[in-house]
């Protein structure tokens, strides 16, 4: 009998036909370690990743289309909340700053300070979730509970301020939806005092845990020049040793008034730019956020938080790109105004969308189990990747 020649298998997105010994493994979209609905098509040779094709879009909710269809600029803010739902305050802040820049609004000092406090609290909350779930991906369950316990205290502070725990709609164009409650500064100070020891606790539980280090050191190394070329930002970029933080390098709001350091990865237990470096950058950033909080709560001036809110927003034809440093990296809004009361185009540059696009480059040559560690160390939120 004549042997029938098998037709080589080709996959969209993979440049060559599969070789005989190569296999496709689907990871997701319903997989606990993909942090949402992300499908990774892994092309493997045994246990080694030859290439990977990420499939995104399962959570696409047409943010940009919605923004064009709103009847005014303010209505876009609740949609911004729902992009990176882990750090909704930071998303609102970016959009509000973009609109204020376009309109030339100067917001009151009190608003600036409250915004910085909220953004830094949000950064701690987001990093706690990132660290907790990263540990859990790798098999450490206890740090996850500790992280969520502390994150809950930040959410309580937000709830006392604006009534919501996740999706705040708090930072408005030109101001805030509510003033903070009377004893807010004291509560934030209490949080700062009690949170410092728990970072130490976290370090002893997870950071230098032998199993954790074995799983993360030398894994998923991202070189600095590759990271820059791929547009990485936030802890992913800083983990590769690049000292780049928009709060320092392209200051917005009042970040130029505060003293803080920019932690970078130094390859302390492995190679510069490995998963452990990206993890430790988040831990150290929480300490720096505490420093900013401690400086800010002592200086909140009196004032009306709604005095600069415009009644009607109708910018002249213009387009501008404004970027801010969210917990996950550079969040950019490119807004095109056409002289009407609603934006003609709002393009979002989500940090995790760009960071996720590096995943194939970081995973080639790694093992299947490493993909989980690498993905966890990027800290993606699919709500923001897919918008």
């Amino acid at each position, binding site marked *: 009998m004549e042997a029938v020649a098998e037709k080589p298998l080709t996959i969209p997105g993979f440049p060559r036909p599969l070789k005989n010994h190569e296999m496709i493994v689907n990871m997701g979209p319903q997989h606990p370690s993909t942090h949402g609905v992300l499908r990774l098509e892994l092309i493997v040779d045994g246990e080694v990743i030859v290439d990977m094709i990420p499939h995104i879009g399962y959570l696409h909710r047409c943010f940009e289309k919605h923004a064009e269809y709103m009847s005014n600029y303010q209505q876009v803010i609740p949609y911004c909340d729902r992009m990176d739902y882990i750090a909704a305050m930071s998303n609102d802040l970016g959009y509000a700053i973009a609109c204020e820049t376009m309109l030339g609004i100067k917001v009151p000092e009190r608003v600036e300070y409250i915004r910085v406090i909220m953004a830094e609290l949000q950064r701690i909350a987001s990093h706690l979730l990132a660290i907790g779930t990263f540990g859990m991906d790798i098999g450490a369950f206890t740090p996850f509970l500790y992280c969520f316990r502390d994150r809950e205290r930040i959410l309580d502070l937000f709830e006392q301020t604006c009534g919501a725990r996740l999706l705040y709609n708090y930072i408005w164009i030109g101001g805030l939806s509510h003033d903070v409650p009377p004893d807010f500064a004291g509560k934030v100070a209490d949080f700062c005092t009690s949170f410092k020891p728990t970072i130490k606790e976290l370090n002893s539980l997870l950071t230098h845990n032998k199993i954790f280090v074995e799983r993360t050191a030398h894994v998923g190394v991202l070189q600095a020049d590759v990271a820059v*070329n791929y547009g990485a930002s936030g802890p992913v970029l800083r983990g590769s040793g690049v000292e780049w933080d928009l709060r320092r390098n392209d200051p917005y709001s009042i970040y130029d008034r505060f003293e803080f350091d920019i932690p970078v990865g130094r390859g302390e237990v492995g190679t510069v730019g490995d998963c452990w470096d990206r993890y430790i950058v988040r831990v150290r950033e929480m300490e720096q956020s505490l420093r900013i909080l401690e400086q800010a709560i002592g200086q909140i001036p009196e004032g009306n938080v709604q005095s600069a809110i415009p009644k009607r927003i109708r910018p002249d034809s213009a387009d501008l790109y404004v970027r801010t440093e969210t917990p996950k990296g550079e969040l950019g809004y490119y807004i095109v105004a056409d002289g009407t009361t609603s934006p003609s185009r709002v393009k979002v540059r989500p940090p995790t969308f760009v960071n996720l696009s590096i995943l194939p480059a970081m995973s080639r040559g790694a093992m299947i189990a490493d993909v989980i560690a690498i993905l966890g160390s990027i800290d993606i939120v699919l709500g923001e990747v897919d918008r």
Partner: protein
Amino acid sequence: MIPQEILDTLIKQFPGVTFELKKAGSGDPSILVPPDRILDVSRFLRDDDRMAFDSLMCLSGVDYTGGRMGVVYHLDSMTKRHKVTLKVEVSDDQPECQSVESVWKTANWHEREAFDLFGIRFAGHPDLRRILLPDDWVGHPLRKDYELPEYYRGMKVPY
């Protein structure tokens, strides 16, 4: 370097190519580049020591209506600490533009997104597929002339 100086350098570097500096209202100034030269210009801006635009912050497709569409490139130099916005204008019946994926890898997904939502084709892109929408989606939803479909795979869409 301010955008005017960057424009002067570009004019000197690329004789015969028309560049145009635009600024509207409170927006960022931008340099208009012909769609068939954007790759050369991008490579020059990245590799030249005076420019050193090592990072592409954002790449967006825009529908300006009236038959015009555009691609907007926001570049940033982390070493020189300057920024510039490049714009390319294409017609909306055959929107095609050069891909800058070979200059900045980050353009890969951004260009796929612009193709997905606007139908702009990027010549030289290694893998131009839809990224956010399903593969069988008809049309490009962020175009201003897009009509919302009443049915998706035979199912009535509630509005």
